[in-house]
Every structure is written in structure tokens, then in C-alpha cells.
């Protein structure tokens, strides 16, 4: 789909300004070449993560998780795992049916979305080590805050 869009856009831009468009595409190809090693590294980490942190493992570890330990475990797994949304949320649905708390689910899905150990090679390449580390730590803290508020809302946690 995105290729059709890119092709259509390129065709239109090409008619407006040939040179500019060719220059843009050249920059694009240069970027693809330059970024392939870091993306390759990320794919390797993802392949390992998918193998070692499988759906079954998550079901087993979070299956009866609750309380602070459950949240910590969920946050850790969420940070290491790489699971696309269309797999992660059905999985979260199964966990809910098994009686896992919303607090734990929130910690798991939020870290899954925001904290990326497997995307580290790409993030580091674009933002440098320091910013990458700071962003991931802040995201981890944010995930804990979100999970606490979710817990309060669903009446699983009390002040």
C-alpha cells in the first residue's frame, strides 16, 4: 500500500519538478543503504526476542501475576519483548480472562509500546546513546504511573 502511495506521490512530484524529485529519491536511497546495518541488527534482536520471549512464556509468567511483583515482571517482559499490536492485545485479552489484573496488563502493554530494548540499535543510531537511555528510562517510569492509575480506576489498587 505504502509503495503505491510513494509511487503515486513520486509521479505527481516528478511532473511538477523533475530535478527536485530525483534529488529526493537519491537521498532516500542513500538513507536506505546507510540504515540497513542498524535495521539488520534490530531484526536480529527481534528474531531472538520473539524466540525467547514467546507468547506462551508471557502467558505462563503473567498468568498468575499480581501485585508489585506482577507489575515488575510485566514491565520487564514488556521491555524485552517485541510483539506487534495485533498479537499483543489478543494476548492481553486472554490474560484478562485468566484473571490477570488490569494493572499488570497496563504495565505490560505500555512498556511493550514505549520501552524498546530491541529497537535500541536504531534509536541509538538516530539519537545517540544518552538520549536513548534517558527516553527509555522515562518511558519505564511512565508505564508504572499509567499502570497505577489504571489500577486505581478499576479498583484494584487503593490509596
Amino acid at each position, binding site marked *: 500500500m*505504502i*509503495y503505491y502511495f*510513494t509511487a503515486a*506521490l*513520486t509521479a505527481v*512530484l516528478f511532473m511538477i519538478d523533475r530535478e*527536485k*524529485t530525483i534529488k*529526493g*529519491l*537519491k*537521498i*532516500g*536511497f542513500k*538513507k*536506505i*543503504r*546507510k*540504515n540497513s*546495518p*542498524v*535495521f*539488520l541488527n*534490530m*531484526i*536480529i534482536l*527481534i*528474531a*531472538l526476542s520473539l*524466540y525467547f520471549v514467546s507468547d506462551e512464556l508471557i502467558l505462563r509468567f503473567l498468568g498468575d501475576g499480581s501485585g508489585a511483583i506482577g507489575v515488575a515482571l510485566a514491565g520487564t517482559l514488556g521491555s524485552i519483548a517485541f510483539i506487534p*499490536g*495485533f498479537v499483543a*492485545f*489478543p494476548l*492481553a*485479552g486472554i490474560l*484478562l480472562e485468566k484473571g490477570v489484573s*488490569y494493572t499488570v*496488563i*497496563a504495565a505490560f*502493554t*505500555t512498556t511493550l509500546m*514505549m520501552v*524498546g530494548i530491541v*529497537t535500541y540499535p*536504531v*534509536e541509538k*543510531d*538516530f*539519537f*545517540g546513546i*544518552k*538520549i536513548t537511555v*534517558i527516553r527509555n528510562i522515562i*518511558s519505564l517510569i*511512565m508505564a508504572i*504511573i*499509567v499502570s497505577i*492509575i489504571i489500577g486505581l*480506576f478499576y479498583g484494584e489498587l487503593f490509596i
Partner: protein
Amino acid sequence: MKINLKKYWLFIIFSILIGVGFILDLNIARGVFANFYSFFLTMLKFVPAVFLLIGLFEVWIDKDLIEKHLGKDSGFLAYFWVLILASTTVGGLYVAFPVASALYKKGASPRIIFSYIGTAAICRIPMTLFEASYVGVSFTAIRWLVSIPLVVISSILMEKFISEKDLANISDAA
């Protein structure tokens, strides 16, 4: 074209280990390779196109336009623009990083690109729809209401406290 082998060290080691694993007929090698192959194909489906679009963006979009709407003097509306851009971002964070650095090079302010990355992580529409249908609409609503302000606040703090030197590292890898 000279290929810098150093950049491929992990890939070389990985290939050797997978090769050895296949010779020894280990399940783990087969499993990891299957994951690698299938995700590699997934990435081919859109990542190259994203980089071509970024290339076109760099040539076609005026720096003044980005500076005016997403730059350091931009107002509240800037967060709205990046939220729209973030929620329609394809793939995941690995697409948001190159897009964010391209925006930064065009004059978007640090707080805006950090907000973009944060919201691209948590607000992508297809993902949100999955979440709402499997975990619940109210769960998604609270998560958005809590995490979007947190992303914005932390992005402003990051802009304040991260040194110019580290910000200068943000490269568009061109």
C-alpha cells in the same frame, strides 16, 4: 560501493551461529531463523518506502514551514499536529525514529519530536483499535488521557535538561 564490514559484525556472527545451528540440526537455530526471515520480509514491505518518503520530504518541504508550526516558538497546536502524525505512523518506533530526526533537521523543536516519538509509541490508530476491542474502551481511554499529558510533560523536561551537545547528535543518518 565499499561495504563497511564493521557495521555488519552482528549480522556476520548471527549468520555463522545460525549456519552452525543448522548443521547441528538445532531447533533454536531454525526457530530464530524463521523469525528473522519473516520479520525481514515484514520490514521490506514498508521501511524502504518510508526512507524514500523522508528523502522527498527533505527536498520538498520548506524549512520555514516546519519551523513555524513545530519549531521552538510553536504553540499548543504543534502537539496536536504531531499527535495526528503519530497516530497515523505505520510500523512502530523504528519508523518514528527516522521520521523524528528528519523533522528535527527541518527545524522542529526537541520537545516536539520527543512528543512525536512518545505518541507514536502509544497512539497509533490500528494498535489502539486492537487494544480497545480486546482490553476495553475505557482502558484505552484512560491510558490515552494519562499517558499523552505525561509524554508532553516529559518531552518538555527532556528539552530543558538534555544538553545541546547531545541534541546535536540527533542525526538524520543521511
